[in-house]
């Protein structure tokens, strides 16, 4: 046994690939490049367009400073849109969160059919937004709405004056909010279940021995422990709702009369359908401060949890 294990040629160049300091950045570079090119760059472009008078029909770049911003902010439609966006987001979040927590608590308990129940509860979140929204659109149909049929059959409404879920302003807002919440709540369920099951058994047992009842255990022990995950989920959920355009676009296209218009759908209407890229970009940019707040909040939560 006199042979020595070194049979790898000692060429210097080979050892470059062994240096973690080289390989590490190399492995990350493509991801960073992709993100910079297709996220950071368009964002800068949005700013660039927002201070110009660029439209599809007149693609010459002319700098107009903040003129576009003033135009947009003075517009009643825009103000209505801003209010709508907040209303939908807050409404959908509250409903979605409460339902999610409630459903999670139900699903934590073992009962026959739990697997099926969970699979069904997850569906609204799993299925593509356009397809799910179409189903709701059919359910809200002006003539054949199953909801109206059921309400009429139960004697709660007069079929002749059945509510136009997508045609009346207040009802349309309600409808869109409910659909948002419906899409959101399974996400909440999943997060809450994950959170609940991650609380160590020992802590729960100790609390029980210490005399804590069901509600106290829940609100004073479990909730604070899972708060970080819940907050992260809330932040994500809020951002997704606030910036969503699909539900509104498909259900009402922002109508009736901009009654359900949200920032996303307004930006689409102005920027793509009307071709006014400059003003469209401004509307898009109004999403940004909100996004920034969400990011800062998220970072604070993450930092406190020392990932």
């Amino acid at each position, binding site marked *: 046994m006199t042979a020595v294990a070194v049979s790898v040629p000692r060429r210097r160049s080979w050892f470059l690939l062994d240096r973690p300091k080289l390989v590490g950045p190399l492995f990350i570079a493509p991801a960073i490049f992709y993100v910079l090119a297709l996220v950071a760059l368009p964002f800068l472009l949005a700013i660039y367009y927002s201070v110009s008078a660029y439209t599809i029909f007149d693609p010459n770049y002319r700098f107009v400073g903040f003129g576009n911003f003033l135009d947009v902010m003075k517009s009643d439609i825009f103000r209505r849109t801003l209010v709508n966006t907040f209303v939908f987001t807050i409404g959908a979040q509250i409903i979605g969160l409460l339902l999610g927590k409630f459903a999670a608590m139900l699903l934590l308990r073992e009962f026959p059919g739990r697997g099926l129940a969970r699979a069904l509860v997850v569906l609204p979140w799993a299925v593509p937004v356009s397809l799910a929204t179409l189903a709701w659109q059919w359910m809200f149909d002006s003539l*054949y709405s199953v909801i109206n049929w059921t309400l009429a059959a139960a004697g709660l409404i007069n079929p002749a004056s059945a509510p136009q879920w997508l045609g009346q302003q207040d009802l349309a807002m309600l409808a869109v909010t409910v659909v948002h919440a419906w899409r959101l709540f399974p996400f909440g369920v999943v997060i809450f279940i994950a959170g609940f099951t991650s609380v160590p058994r020992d802590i729960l047992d100790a609390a029980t021995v210490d005399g804590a009842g069901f509600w106290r255990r829940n609100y004073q022990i479990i909730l604070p422990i899972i708060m970080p*995950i819940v907050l992260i989920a809330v932040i994500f959920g809020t951002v997704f709702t606030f910036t969503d355009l699909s539900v509104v676009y498909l259900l009402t296209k922002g109508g009736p009369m901009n009654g359900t218009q949200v920032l996303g759908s307004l930006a689409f209407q102005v920027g793509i359908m009307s071709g006014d890229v400059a003003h469209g970009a401004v509307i898009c940019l109004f999403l940004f401060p909100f996004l920034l707040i969400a990011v800062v909040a998220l970072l604070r939560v993450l930092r406190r949890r020392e990932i």
Partner: protein
Amino acid sequence: MPRLATRLLGEGSFYAAVIALVTFAAFPFYWMLITTFKTDGDLYNLKSNPYWFNAAPTLEHIRYLFHDTLFVQWVSNTALIGLCVVAITLIVALPAGYSLARMSGRGAESLGIGIFLTYLVPPTLLFLPLSRVISQLGLQDSLWSLVLVYPTFTIPFCTWLFMGFFKSVPREIEEAAIVDGCTVIGAFWKTVLPLSVPGILTVVIFAFTLTMQEFVYALTFISSSDEKPVTLGVATDLVRGDIFYWGELMAAALIASVPVAIAYNLFLDRFISGITGGAVK
């Protein structure tokens, strides 16, 4: 026996709550299902009970869908886009996730969080400038525009998932491979990858579902019917004038939804541990 009564009441209300919840979540899908198989006569009859079949179920909507619309084309578009996007995502996110999982120090942490945060950037912020970029690149109205743009949200998310999965592979195994004669990349290839196959599979499925669910970019970039992915095509093309062909619409929605729903349910547990695993450590 008040005890029994309260227990029954408790159990009863528990199950009632569960049923109410499940109904709220799943009813639209039941509605999709039943609409697909109802004849038009049955569907558009104000007098009939909508909850069940009043005439015999029919396959005519499905037949129409497959023969007289571009549904099959849309599905194959979606498949193509999905495959390409997943491929790109794997090539970019796998090494990135590995690098972040193994790098030590605050820099790595910040970078990881930074990449994850880009997932928060909504398509509705970027779709407008991106549409200009796409037309500059001559990709407008082509599904390749989506293949180019979709990785912007799959990569950050999948990098985060991979980071979580790779962190759970013990370092010692890689170090043993390095001592045994592998380069850093060799050790990754021969030890970490084979051990992460379930995680990789999960990420592939989720990347695919992410591309299937996207709507905004598809709506913005593509207008020719035969380039559309299925989620766009169904929502826009199955409407003639102002008339919604609900039978076909629901059939299409149903068929397109089923694979995603199945995939999500099969991989949900993995997915959750991937997300929280990266965060709860």
